[in-house]
C-alpha cells in the first residue's frame, strides 16, 4: 500500500508534467510548420 501510494504520486507528477511538456513541444512544432 505504501509503495503504491508513493509510486502513484511520482507517476502523477512525472506523467502530468511530461504530458504537458510533450503537448507543448508538438503544439509548437505544428505551429512552426
Amino acid at each position: 500500500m505504501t509503495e503504491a501510494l508513493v509510486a502513484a504520486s511520482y507517476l502523477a507528477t512525472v506523467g502530468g508534467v511530461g504530458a504537458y511538456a510533450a503537448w507543448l513541444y508538438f503544439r509548437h512544432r505544428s505551429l512552426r510548420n
Partner: protein
Amino acid sequence: MNRIRVLMTLAGLALAVGLFFALRAPIDAFQGAYSRIMHVHVPTAWLAFLAFGVTAVGSIGWRLRKTRRWDRLAAASAELGVLFTALALITGSLWGGGVWGTYWDWGDARMATTALMFFVYVGYLALRGASPDRETAAARSSILGIVAVVQVPLVYFSVNLFRSLHQGQSIRPDGATMPTEMLVAMLVNVAAFTVIYIALLIVRMSVLKLEEQTAPVPTAAGAAVQPPQLGKALDD
C-alpha cells in the same frame, strides 16, 4: 538544437536531478516511505503559488502597458499554475491517504482553500476562452488575475489561521523541522521544479505568440452575416 529543444532538455534534466535526490533522501521515522511524497508535493505547491503570483504580475503589466507580452505571461503562468495546483492536490491527497488515513477532508482549511484556488484559476482560463477577442480576454482576465492572487497568502497561512488536519510550516524563519539530508533533497526539488516551470513558461509563451500569428482574430458571433444589399441586381 533550437531554443525549444534546449528548454525541454533542461526541464527533463531538472526533473531527473530532482527525482534522484528525492529517491535517495532518508525517510521519516514516523511517516515511513510516505515522506518521499513530500519531495514532489512541496515543490508543486510552491510552483502553484509562484505561477499565480506571476499571473498577477503579468495582469498588472498588461493593465499598465497594454502589450501582448504581458498578457501572454499571465495566461501561460495561469495554465501552469492550474497544472501544478492539480498535482499538489493529487500528491497531497495520496500522502494524506497513507499518513492521516483519509484522502480528503473539506473541514481542513489548507485542502479547502487550495481546492478553491484551483477552481478559481480554472475559471480564469475559462474566462479567457469565453471572451470574443484577445483584447477583451486580456482586459477581463487581468482583473481576475489581480484579484484572485489574494488566495495565495490565504492558502499559505491557512495552517496558522485555522488549526485542523494539515500540519504547520516545516520551514520557518527559526529553522526547519526536518534533518538536513531531507531538507537538502526538498530544496533541490524546489529548485529543479522552478527550472521546469521557467522552461515550460517560456515555451508556452512562445506557443501563444505563434497561435496569435497563425490563427485569425476571433470575431463576435454574427459578425460574418452581411446585411442584404437591397436594390442590387440579382445577376450582379
